């Protein structure tokens, strides 16, 4: 027994030993070599995995190089640096792996710089560089086998390999894999030999990227080459870098270049050469998204892809940023590029159309020109432009260039009348006006059959279904008769002019629900289809800033046919006259409608004439500050200040007889100086008509005087004549240097020299600006004419010329900014300073820090300032951006509380759709900063970010969210328009003021429409009920950026839309109105924070109430007149959202200026002559404001305004803008304040317009169906059973108790 037991034990031990030996042997000799590849692209991963032909090597992939895990289990680690930023921890982990004996290799052009690589033997380093620096199938296969040999030298099998293949660079190639050519002649010969050469065909150089000749995954490359060759082009694909690439392109001298890799095509010199040779640059790109993600409009293109594929190529003047490939998953789970053949076809069509413009005679070319107009009789619209005469001048230029423009009237007035008659835009509430238009005008009629045929050719079936679902079958309810749709248009020879219709019609707000994209109606789609299929235009121009096509629903970039802008514009060469002052929205047009922009000038700046009005008061104030004059002077100053109403703007005391303190006097001085120097623009710009001499001078002064003053002061500071403090005090500069700077520039421009070298260096910018302005007008039409002939448009930055003089001359294709490099260092300095200043001002006012500051981010400001407002938000949180060597912001640092020296302030952000599209990665970075700040300890100062996060979580719990979800969303603070839209949808809602009675309705609509979260990828564009409201809780202050001198809070509606809307929403939620500031970036040397009320006061005094401004604008035409109407509407908007922003006397002042015409400017006559509709709108706004209680008008005032409104209506017919025609309550109010004959005439006019059956339509508050439905469970027990069971049990128990008692 014992022996048997011993034998068994021995057997077990022996078996165990054998097993152990086998395991050891396996690990030493046979186990697979484990290789980790970090940072390979998905397509590359697929290539690697599928070319690893030995089981002896096991590959793993890590995409996120910022989260390098423990590398203990790996025998080899290959890092493909490919632009990755390696932090200290990442390098430490790699080094630890290397010191444990793993083979670690970083593949990078700077490979030698990494210490890790220097640990490798020279031969190993060179071989690995060869294998992974020349990625191709053979090198992957051999490289992994080589790694088995060097990383696990003892292990057997899978070790045989060939040396690396260093494939040639700087070569041409074509579809045949493995075939290379050293120069273009060799390739040409090959193409001829293969029958692929097209005699007389245009030459296209195609640069897909360095690796594509040898990469296994290149279906989109091959497909593009094939399709272009089939279209008659000769394609020269090449791979090369730097100067060699440039030389190869020059040698081919193509007609166009297609460039798809990331980044710029070449240096500035090469790009200039390309444009000088009229070589078009196209920038399609492959997308790292699946086909379904690409087709999903809510999945944006962001981060490095957006920057490198779309934004950076714009700097080169690149065109057509179209997606030509997506990714597909193989059965093995790897991602491949897959060609989007439809898109490649569309790209080929587009290139063909662009190049065809070169050969087609101008006399045969058909050009469609789309202009913009508000409904009714109001003016044609374009930012800062008199549209009708501008279009007329352009048509004259086209005629000079040989285009067929027959039938063009001989004068621009007649032309404008034709436009108004034939090219109108209708609101669906004006059925009578519509009927009149269809009767008297000459639209093009498209039958339903024809329209549906075109739609089936141009639109995906599901896109067309979206229209019919919302608006019913064609022809729809607007501009329709019988079975036909009318397209309002005019034709002059081969030139078609048409107004862009309304992009949405909201008859039933409940149809437009959250989550559903708002497709455009038939009346919007029909003109675009007609242009492409009926008229068969060779090119389309959108005339002026801006229309709505680029804001129809869809992706932000790399659009698919599922996106409306792409669906409607098709492959047409598309050009867009765009104001240089609005780069933020311009880039949207470039990316979403592949528009080539041609910038035009802003209206000229003019002297505002206010200095003379305030001279006496200013002199008195200076004397008082110099301690002269005594109390009598103080009293005089007080009286004059009260008389002018300046005390109301600054919140100063109004007690007569009590002189102001020194502090108050300094405040007054600063305010009046600002008023006197406020830059205002004059009459709208007419394209084709250069600035006058006085306009040139005034604009040059506006652009160049401040920087010159600063430069002069800086030289004095360097010479020790003034201090740095004085240099940084803009009031000091204004007093001591600005007048002298202005004199010097005026003297220079009295007789400007031709050669800037003859001028003092500090004056050269002024002369360059002057010359730039002079050249601009001619340049604008030259550029468009050249573009219509298939030529290039030179790229340039965009923005306000005062802020960025290098936008001049205009007539160029403007580009934005590299979001990855924002906030730039300068922006960080500015933003941090302004954030601190905001806190200083708030603290001075309230004695404590704000808990939360809510920001508005806009694209224009983001681009112009390179992210300064985002920097403000970072600074509030106490987080600092960190940059890599290229200047990209790649990481964040929490500023310690001791360094910050104050509490961390919570932030919330609302963004425009435009900003969301161009800076998505910055928004995600900001969310990371919020998370970081939330987790920071208090350390001596309160952490309002952390407490705010907890509060937000609590509010979400109260909303009924689960603890997990509430926790996740508690750090979401960034919000924007629903449905990936672009605006809040509230402008029309506010201005359709009959539809709401309580400003809280505006707030609720705003919270709904702007409630989509844009903080991280997972929740991108998601909507959670109550989240935006929770994020805005505790808001104590709000900030609105401004960076342009061409608009202000009263002249631009979006300011009240965003800032007023936000303020109203906060008041609705918290019961308290927040402090409001403007972050003012308009002056490069004086970036500052300004109280909103003050900013509004400056603008109203300098413009709306300034006789000089009014006179200047009255030199313009209908566009300038329309602007007044817009400003009045904005005043209404402020009253509805934040009345404290306005002076309570404002309407009385407007009454005196525009109704009584106290300045004797001939107000009524001007509007009668140029644009009566605008005057109707202005009086309607005043009356509606009275009806709503915003203006406490006397009966006399009301009667006067009503009579005036009625008289203009009777003379000109109802204008049918939103305030005039859509508002039955206002019509009744007006009617009640009229007497006798006036009332009768007015009522008759309004009735005939409306025709009683018109429906009220408006862009509506998108209704959100939100909230999460509670979990439901199945129940299956009936109550009767419970009661029965309970009673039975009770009875049994009672019996048992009794029985037991008896037994005892």
């Amino acid at each position: 027994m014992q022996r048997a037991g011993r034998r068994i034990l021995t057997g077990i031990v022996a078996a165990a030993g054998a097993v152990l030996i086998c395991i050891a042997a396996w690990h030493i000799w046979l186990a697979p070599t484990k290789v980790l590849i970090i940072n390979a692209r998905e397509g590359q991963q697929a290539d690697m995995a599928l070319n690893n032909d030995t089981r002896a090597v096991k590959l793993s992939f890590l995409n996120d190089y910022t989260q390098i895990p423990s590398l203990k289990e790996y025998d080899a680690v290959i890092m493909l640096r490919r632009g990755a930023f390696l932090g200290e921890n990442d390098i430490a982990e790699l080094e630890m792996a290397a010191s444990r004996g793993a083979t670690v290799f970083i593949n990078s052009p700077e490979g030698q710089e990494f210490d890790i690589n220097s640990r490798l033997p020279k031969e190993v380093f060179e071989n690995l560089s060869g294998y992974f620096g020349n990625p191709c199938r053979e090198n992957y296969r051999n490289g992994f086998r080589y790694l088995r040999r060097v990383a696990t030298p003892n292990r057997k099998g899978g070790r045989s390999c060939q040396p690396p293949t260093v494939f040639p660079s700087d070569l041409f190639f074509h579809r045949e894999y493995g075939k290379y050519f050293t120069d273009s002649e060799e390739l040409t010969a090959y193409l001829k030999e293969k029958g692929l050469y097209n005699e007389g065909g245009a030459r296209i150089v195609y640069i897909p990227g360095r690796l594509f000749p040898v990469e296994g995954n290149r279906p989109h490359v091959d497909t593009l080459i094939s399709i272009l060759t089939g279209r008659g082009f000769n394609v020269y694909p090449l791979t090369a870098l730097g100067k060699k690439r440039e030389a190869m392109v020059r040698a081919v001298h193509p007609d166009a270049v297609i460039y798809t890799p990331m980044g710029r095509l070449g240096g500035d010199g090469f790009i200039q050469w390309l444009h000088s040779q009229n070589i078009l640059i196209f920038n399609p790109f492959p997308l790292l998204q699946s086909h379904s993600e690409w087709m999903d409009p809510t999945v944006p293109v962001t981060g490095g892809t957006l920057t490198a594929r779309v934004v950076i190529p714009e700097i080169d003047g690149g065109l057509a940023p179209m997606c030509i490939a997506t990714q597909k998953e193989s059965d093995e789970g790897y991602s491949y590029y897959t060609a989007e053949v439809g898109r490649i076809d569309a790209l080929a069509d587009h290139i063909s159309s662009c190049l065809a413009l070169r050969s087609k005679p101008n006399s045969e070319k058909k050009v469609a020109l789309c202009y913009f107009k508000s409904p009714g009789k109001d003016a044609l619209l374009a930012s800062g432009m008199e549209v009708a005469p501008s279009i007329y001048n352009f048509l004259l230029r086209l005629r000079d260039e040989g285009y067929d423009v027959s039938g063009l009237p001989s004068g621009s007035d007649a032309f404008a009348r034709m436009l108004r008659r034939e090219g109108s835009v209708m609101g669906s509430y004006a059925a009578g006006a519509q009927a009149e238009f269809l009767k008297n005008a000459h639209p093009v009629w498209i039958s339903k059959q024809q329209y549906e045929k075109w739609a089936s050719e141009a639109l995906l079936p599901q896109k067309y279904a979206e229209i019919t679902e919302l608006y019913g079958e064609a022809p729809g309810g607007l501009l329709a008769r019988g079975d036909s749709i009318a397209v309002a248009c005019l034709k002059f020879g081969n030139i078609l002019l048409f107004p862009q219709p309304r992009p949405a019609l909201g008859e039933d707000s409940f149809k437009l629900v959250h989550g559903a994209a708002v497709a455009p109606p038939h009346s919007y789609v029909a003109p675009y289809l007609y242009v492409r299929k009926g008229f068969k235009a060779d090119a389309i121009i959108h005339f002026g800033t801006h229309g709505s096509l680029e804001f129809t629903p869809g992706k932000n970039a790399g659009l698919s046919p599922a996106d409306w802008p792409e669906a409607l514009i098709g492959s047409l060469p598309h050009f867009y006259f765009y104001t240089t002052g609005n780069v933020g929205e311009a880039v949207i047009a470039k990316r979403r409608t592949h528009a080539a922009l041609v910038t035009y000038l802003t209206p000229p700046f003019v002297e505002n004439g206010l200095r003379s009005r305030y001279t006496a008061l200013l002199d008195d104030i200076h004397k008082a500050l110099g301690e002269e004059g005594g109390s009598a002077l103080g009293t005089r100053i007080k009286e004059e200040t009260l008389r002018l109403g300046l005390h109301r703007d600054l919140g100063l005391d109004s007690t007569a007889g009590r002189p102001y303190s020194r502090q108050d006097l300094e405040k007054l001085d600063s305010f009046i100086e600002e008023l006197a120097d406020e830059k205002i623009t004059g009459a709208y710009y007419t394209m084709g008509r250069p600035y006058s001499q006085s306009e040139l001078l005034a604009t040059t002064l506006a652009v160049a005087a401040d920087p010159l003053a600063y430069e002069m002061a800086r030289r004095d500071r360097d010479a020790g004549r003034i201090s740095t403090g004085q240099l940084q005090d803009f009031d000091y500069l204004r007093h001591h240097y600005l007048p002298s700077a202005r004199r010097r520039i005026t003297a220079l421009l009295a007789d400007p020299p031709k050669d800037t070298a003859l001028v003092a260096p500090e004056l050269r910018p002024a002369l360059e600006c002057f010359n730039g302005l002079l050249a601009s007008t001619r340049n604008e039409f030259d550029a468009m004419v050249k573009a219509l002939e298939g030529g290039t448009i030179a790229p340039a930055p965009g923005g306000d010329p005062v802020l960025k003089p290098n936008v001049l001359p205009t007539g160029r294709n403007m580009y934005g900014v590299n979001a990855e490099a924002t906030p730039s260092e300068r922006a960080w300095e500015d933003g941090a300073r302004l954030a601190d200043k905001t806190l200083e001002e708030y603290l001075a006012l309230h004695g404590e820090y704000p808990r939360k500051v809510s920001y508005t981010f806009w694209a224009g400001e983001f681009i112009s300032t390179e992210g300064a407002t985002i920097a403000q938000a970072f600074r509030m949180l106490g987080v600092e951006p960190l940059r890599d060597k290229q200047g990209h912001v790649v990481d964040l640092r929490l500023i310690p509380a001791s360094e910050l020296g104050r509490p961390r302030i919570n932030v919330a952000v609302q963004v425009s759709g435009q900003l969301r599209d161009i800076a998505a990665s910055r928004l995600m970075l900001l969310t990371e900063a919020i998370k970081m700040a939330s987790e920071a300890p208090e350390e001596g100062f309160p952490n309002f970010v952390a407490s705010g996060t907890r509060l937000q979580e609590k509010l979400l719990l109260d909303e009924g969210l689960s603890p997990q979800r509430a926790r996740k969303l508690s750090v979401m603070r960034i919000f924007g328009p629903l449905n990936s839209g672009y605006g809040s949808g509230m402008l029309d809602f506010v201005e359709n003021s009959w539809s709401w009675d309580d400003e809280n309705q505006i707030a609720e609509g705003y919270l709904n429409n702007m409630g989509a979260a844009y903080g991280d990828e997972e929740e991108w564009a998601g909507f959670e009920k109550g989240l935006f409201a929770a994020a805005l809780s505790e808001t104590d202050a709000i900030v609105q950026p401004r960076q342009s001198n061409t608009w202000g809070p009263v002249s631009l509606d979006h300011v009240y839309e965003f800032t007023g809307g936000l303020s109203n929403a906060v008041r609705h939620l918290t019961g308290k109105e927040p402090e409001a500031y403007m972050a003012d970036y308009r002056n490069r040397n004086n970036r500052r924070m300004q109280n909103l009320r003050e900013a509004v006061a400056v603008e109203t005094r300098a413009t709306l109430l300034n006789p000089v401004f009014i006179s200047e604008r009255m030199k313009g035409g209908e566009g300038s007149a329309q602007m007044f109407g817009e400003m009045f509407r904005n005043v209404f908007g402020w009253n509805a959202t934040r009345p404290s922003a306005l002076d309570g006397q404002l309407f009385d002042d407007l009454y005196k200026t525009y109704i009584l015409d106290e300045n004797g400017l001939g107000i009524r006559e001007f509007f009668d002559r140029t644009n009566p509709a605008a005057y109707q709108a202005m009086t309607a706004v005043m009356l509606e404001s009275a009806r709503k209680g915003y203006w406490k008008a006397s009966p006399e005032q009301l009667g006067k305004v009503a009579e005036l409104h009625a008289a203009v209506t009777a003379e000109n017919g109802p204008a049918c803008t939103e305030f005039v025609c859509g508002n039955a309550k206002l019509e009744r109010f007006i009617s009640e304040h009229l007497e006798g004959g006036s009332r009768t005439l007015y009522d008759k006019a309004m009735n005939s317009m409306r025709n009683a059956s018109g429906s009220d339509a408006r862009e509506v508050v998108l209704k959100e169906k939100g909230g999460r439905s509670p979990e439901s469970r199945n129940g299956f027990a009936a109550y009767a059973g419970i009661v029965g069971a309970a009673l039975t049990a009770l009875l049994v128990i009672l019996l048992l108790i009794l029985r037991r008692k008896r037994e005892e």
Partner: protein
Amino acid sequence: MQLLFTLIAILLIFSFVLKGALMPRKSWVALVALAALALWFAFPWLTSQPSSAVTGVFSDRKILADVSAAVVTEAILMILFCFLRAGERSAWTLWVPEILAIPSLCLLPVLTLYALPGVDFTLFRIGAAIASIIVTAGGILLVKALSRSESEPLEALFLVNIFILLLTVAAAGAFTF
């Protein structure tokens, strides 16, 4: 209604503790550990439930009917157990199931969680598990210390379950009528 059922939940925990006091050490320790483990594993699911789902339970008749049925069933089982145990002290009788204590142990932390925004979920989870151990094990030890024989906890168990039964019937009546 929420208050009533919260009270019932507390009584179910009492019942669990009283029954545990009747068990040998290894058995009640195993039960306490099981209860704590159940709470631990249920925690992620609990945090993903919106408060409306929890409070909805107390306003949904069907769900309340189910809950009442389950509570009544278990109360009856416990009452029967008391009689059984009074007559026969075999070990197998101790394994009459009593499981509603576990959801009762989960309810209280969940309600607390909704009132504590910002608390670390992991810490809370650990705390809740420890608290359940302290409450149940502590309760059992306390009952054992206070009882001279098995009769007292048995009688108390009987009375608690009678009370649970009556409360449940009353609650069912309230939400029905």
